[in-house]
């Protein structure tokens, strides 16, 4: 008897618990009332995320006119979190979307995000009007702008070399890919460090997955004139890796490797250790973003404080055998989109856009990128000078709040103070090289097109080509093997992707 009574009671108890819990969790999110707070979901890179009582939060809330509350997610796991959040019903008002993956595109096309194209074009939000329409176009889904993109430098790629080795050998900074080849040879064979031993090599390449995402190989291929992922040929778009220029570039890369001018572990080296061979005097050339040069200067400063300015040489992008082409970045890194589940009415949307507009003022840019003026930094002669005793806070600002920065209408925050004249000169050189290379930048003509087949199979398709490239360079496969991989790409969905991209190209151009 007792058991019969107790079991149902227990079940009932749990059942009612579940019921009340469900009722409680529905806190009225997504009503039509004007917003009182702005919930934003964003990734962070800093060691520790900011807290709710963060001074930047308070200052930005005041600027935006809405109480800003950011749900911080470690950058590493941002994708997983995004998808569970979209599945729930407690959806933030603004979400940083990192890329046009399948879940985002499908949600957007099903009406899950506001189409901002008209609103941004209206001019009602001057700080959200892009100064770079190509980039906004590239961030769109087939012409529909679902978010305010987060602007990035368009030119970042560069050649970084051991200046002291060049000086020892009486060589100049490279201007062409042939110069680079000769320097790589000399760094390997001519004892650039003068220690009498054969213990150096030319170029340092780390392991790199995917194609068209800024690898040293991509750079060399663009310089050879292969185009940037897609290129126009007779009125139609074709993948860059089907061009003869691409094959020519691959041969160049293979020769570098087979002659031993590249580190032996180029297929496996952890990119986190990219600086090490350069710093230790094993390799002398890095093809990567300009900011790495500044990073290396900082490390040499620790190692050899008296001569740190003798080690790092920085060159712009190189002229290839077929002309002068520069590799740009995508120009943006994801965008801030507005989910319809959180922001239900047009009035609310306008509130959100007004707030985002305020977050793009110079004042907000200084807050998000530098911190609190007079606290962790001061302004001297128009440049931001940081208080080193508050470095942790500064790091948190740049690693978290800066991730909310859009800067689509220009970036006007104070420039950073450079520690030495040498650093200042290097910084100026970077700006000059950027301006110079921008004129030759080869953009991806298909950046704004979303091909459904690529959205589902893109990662595998890219891997086919990226693997074949490395295998060819390593001598594991020959021209026929490379061609077989490209055929495999076509057969595994590449043909559909090409078709879809070209349909969009015809439709939207």
């Amino acid at each position, binding site marked *: 008897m007792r058991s019969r009574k*107790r079991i149902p009671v227990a079940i009932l108890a749990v059942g009612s618990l579940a019921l009340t819990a469900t009722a409680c969790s529905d806190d009225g999110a997504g009503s039509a009332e004007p917003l009182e707070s702005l919930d934003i979901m964003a990734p962070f890179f800093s060691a520790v995320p900011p807290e709710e009582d963060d001074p930047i939060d308070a200052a930005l809330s005041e600027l935006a006119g809405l109480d800003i509350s950011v749900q911080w997610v470690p950058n590493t796991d941002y994708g997983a979190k995004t998808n569970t959040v979209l*599945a729930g019903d407690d959806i933030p008002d603004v979400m940083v979307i990192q890329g046009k993956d399948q*879940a985002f595109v499908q*949600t957007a096309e099903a009406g899950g995000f506001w189409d901002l194209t008209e609103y941004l074009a209206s001019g009602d939000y001057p700080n959200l009007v892009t100064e770079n329409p190509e980039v906004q176009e590239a961030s769109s889904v087939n012409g529909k702008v679902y978010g305010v993109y987060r602007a990035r430098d368009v030119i970042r790629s560069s050649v970084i070399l051991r200046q002291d080795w060049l000086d020892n050998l009486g060589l100049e900074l490279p201007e062409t890919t042939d110069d680079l080849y000769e320097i790589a040879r000399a760094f390997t064979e001519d004892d650039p460090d003068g220690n009498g031993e054969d213990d150096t090599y030319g170029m340092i390449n780390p392991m790199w997955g995917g194609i068209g995402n800024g690898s040293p190989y991509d750079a060399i291929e663009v310089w050879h004139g292969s185009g940037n992922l897609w290129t126009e040929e007779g009125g139609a778009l074709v993948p860059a890796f089907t061009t003869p220029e691409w094959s020519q570039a691959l041969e160049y890369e293979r020769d570098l490797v087979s002659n031993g001018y590249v580190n032996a572990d180029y297929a496996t080296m952890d990119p986190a250790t990219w600086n090490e061979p350069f710093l230790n005097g094993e390799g002398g050339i890095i093809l990567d973003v300009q900011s790495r040069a500044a990073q290396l200067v900082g490390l040499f400063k620790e190692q050899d404080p008296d001569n740190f300015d003798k080690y790092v040489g920085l060159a712009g992008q190189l002229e290839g055998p077929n002309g002068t082409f520069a590799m740009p970045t995508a120009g943006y890194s994801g965008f801030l989109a507005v*989910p319809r*589940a959180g922001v239900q009415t047009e009035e609310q949307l306008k509130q959100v856009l007004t707030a985002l507009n305020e977050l793009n003022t110079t004042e907000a840019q200084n807050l998000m990128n530098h911190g609190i003026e007079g606290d962790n930094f001061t302004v001297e002669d128009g440049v931001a000078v940081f208080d080193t005793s508050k470095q942790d806070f500064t790091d948190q600002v740049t690693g978290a709040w800066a991730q909310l920065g859009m800067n689509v209408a220009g970036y006007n925050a104070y420039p950073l103070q450079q520690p030495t004249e040498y650093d200042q000169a290097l910084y100026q050189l970077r700006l000059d090289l950027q301006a110079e290379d921008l004129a030759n930048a080869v953009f991806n003509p298909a950046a704004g097109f979303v091909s459904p087949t690529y959205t589902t199979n893109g990662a595998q398709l890219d891997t086919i080509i990226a693997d074949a490239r490395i295998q060819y360079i390593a001598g*594991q496969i020959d021209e026929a093997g490379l061609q077989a991989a490209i055929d495999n790409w076509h057969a595994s969905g590449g043909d559909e992707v090409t078709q879809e991209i070209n349909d969009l190209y015809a439709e939207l151009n």
Partner: protein
Amino acid sequence: MTTVLEVDREPGAPPSRTPARRRRLWTDAVRYRWLFLLMLPGVLYFVLFRFWPMYGARIAFKNYIPFLGIDGSEWVGLTHFREFLSNPDFPRLLENTLILAGLSLFIAFPLTIVLALLLNELRLQILKRTVQTLVYIPHFLSWTVVVSITALLFAIGNGPLWTFLGWAFGTDANFLADPDWFRPLILMQEVWKNTGWGTIIFLAALAGVDQEQYEAAVIDGAGRWQRVWHITIPSILPTIVVLLILQTGQILNTGFEQIYLMSNSLNRTVADVFDTYVYFAGIEQGAYSYSTAVGLFKAIVGLVLIFGTNWLAKRFNQQGIF
């Protein structure tokens, strides 16, 4: 039942259980009321957190878009299963997965038992405890750390192990990129990381062994090896069998992180397994329906294997899991 019980039981003691006869539900409920009551929280747990979510697993048959919800998403039937099984890479994925699982089952797993037995034979208590503590430490390092340390050790030119192997065997292989070395490296990492940890469960089993048995065996003149063979091994045999059965159910789960981190363009032909494939084809792209479909497929295979090996174990008079 196992030999342990036979030894434990005093001679002449009556068998402790009468076979359950068919009775009416009501009498059962009364008779077992305490047991049912004890089990209730656990059963509720399984219903709430394990089975209720499975209702959501019907996204395997749909084109799930989070924004539309499970019910709002389009029903596509077996499309995802077909797509997976007709993938031209499927045979290669299966082969790679099975080889890695086989290495783990036939080499790593027995090594765990061997290490547990060796530890059990160690008489110096202080050393025993120290070694036990040391060997279980690697379990706490994440695969990220294990893989970066491996890269450090096998680095061409200055890696300590690369240098040593070159000196000892005259090899200058690029261990990290060579497809022939991929599986040995994966196995080595797994053995290093998890063998010590795996012994814990056997040592717990060994702790339950009646010391009197050993003493009685000594009096009977049994040698050391005989004691291990006739007392120690039988006493952990049920644990071994259960672990083995459960592991066969995981045969298609090689784990993602380790393999993903160890794979590169030059060894991908041997490194691609179901878990890495699903990650790139499904999870990274946010294609949850597809990855759920693959998960379901793996579950069915796992289930068949578990029931199969359990049946085999019963045939060999072992306790099994049911």
